[in-house]
């Protein structure tokens, strides 16, 4: 009845900021970045990408509570770049990987389309999964509940 709308967990509200940066005061070159209305899909991918970059000393993410639709990612760099910049680089790099993958998929799909065109794989009719409709009940009788 008073449940929040389902889309509130993945759609930014009016004026809501998607990213929030909290710089770490106790660790050099470190920051915690809160990314709102995103989940493991983005968090884990970013973390993995960051860890593969040589400037990174630490990268980790967590979703503090499963019902709170945000995750935080903590980054420490070696000082050559700020955590913010390296996160941006990681995003760009991932976008590059994804778009190169997209071209490859498109090519593969077009090959497969050519192969299978004309072969029209249509599954044949098997028997009725819900049981056959044989045998009418009470044929020719009237029904009281009609």
């Amino acid at each position, binding site marked *: 009845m008073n449940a929040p709308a389902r889309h509130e967990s993945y759609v930014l509200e009016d004026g809501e900021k998607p990213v929030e940066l909290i710089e770490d005061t106790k660790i050099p070159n470190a920051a915690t970045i809160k990314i709102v209305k995103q989940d493991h899909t983005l968090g*884990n991918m970013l973390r993995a990408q960051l860890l593969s970059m040589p400037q990174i000393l630490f990268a980790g993410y967590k979703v503090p509570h499963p019902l709170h639709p945000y995750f935080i990612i903590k980054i420490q760099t070696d000082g050559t770049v700020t955590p913010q910049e390296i996160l941006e680089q990681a995003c760009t790099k991932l976008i590059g990987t994804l778009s190169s993958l997209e071209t*490859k998929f498109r090519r593969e799909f077009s090959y497969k389309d050519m192969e299978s065109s004309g072969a029209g794989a249509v599954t044949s009719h098997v028997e009725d999964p819900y049981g056959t409709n044989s045998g009418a009940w009470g044929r020719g009788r009237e029904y009281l509940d009609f």
Partner: protein
Amino acid sequence: MNTQLQDDLEPTVRIRKLERDRVNFVLGNVDLAFANSLRRVMMADIPTVAIDMVEIEINTTVLPDEFIAHRLGMVPLNSSNCDEAIRYTRDCTCLAGCSFCAMMLVLNISCHDDNTLDVTSDHLEVIPYPVTEDEHMPIHDDPGEEMSKRGPYFGHPVGKDDPDARPVLIAKIRKGQELKIRCIAKKGIAKEHAKFSPCSAVSFEYDPYNKLRHTTYWYETDIKAEWPLSENAREEEAPRDDEPFDFNAKPNKFYFEVETDGSLGPQEVVMKGLAELQNKLASLVLGLKSGADLDIPEPVHGHMAEQVWDGGNAAGMGWNPPAVASTSWTAATVASSSPGRGGAASNGWSQNNDSPMGGGWGAAPAANAGWGSPNPRANGWNM
């Protein structure tokens, strides 16, 4: 430096099998997290249309209204080009649904025969969305191009136009029983309700020999004989018996099989999945860039992210008003096909007790029409 090597290589993809409803492919030279994100996004982030509201006028079958409403919600509807062909109701200018953000389907059937009649998804008819009263306002100034983007079968139950495809059984009725139902189909993603997922199954495997020891198998006597080796094992080299454990090894080859329910084709699912991931990353980059200059709402934002990122439209119309209030139909019963919408308050959403509204479950502010929920922004969520 295995990681370095892997990063320098371009990702590879090889489609092993492409059928009408499934694609089987091998992804190479990518990270485990990357492959998993692709899997997650294909399952949960791709919009489709599905029946979301059901108005039951006559139901004299043995099945209760809720039961039928739920079954109708699960029926896959043809949703190709969903991005452009239909809006989210929360982004639309209308109040509760219009021809741009909803589809209407009717089911009107009665049995006059001695045989049991199977009511199936083939009996669902798409009808043009009726012009309602709240449509007089902005809708005419806004000649959306959604309609022209729809294919001829957009919104139709999957397989309705194919004599070889078997329909989905909704109910079985006997002589004298009748069903008269109106359904409103809306666009959504699987994070809202699983019925919106275009995938019926996504299988995902790596390392069939378990060389990486990411899992352990319980076994009775002989681990080799009982090992459930999959077909994908043929793609990889079996480990030698004396092979030492390589603790630096990383998974590198991922075997996917994406099976769709027919609402979208497998090709569309994969391509949309890749595009959606890029959208997520692009809007994050944008958020990082605009984070410096405060208080400037990014104008490009909604465009970049294809509506997914659009905040609710004006006046918080993303909340669907209860269906009864929004229509003039003489509906005998109004049942929602998604649980948690207008049903009893059995929800798993936590509310922060520290929030000023703490514990104010029924104490809705008057402004919040129709829903006894505190202002969603005061919920103590991520503010």
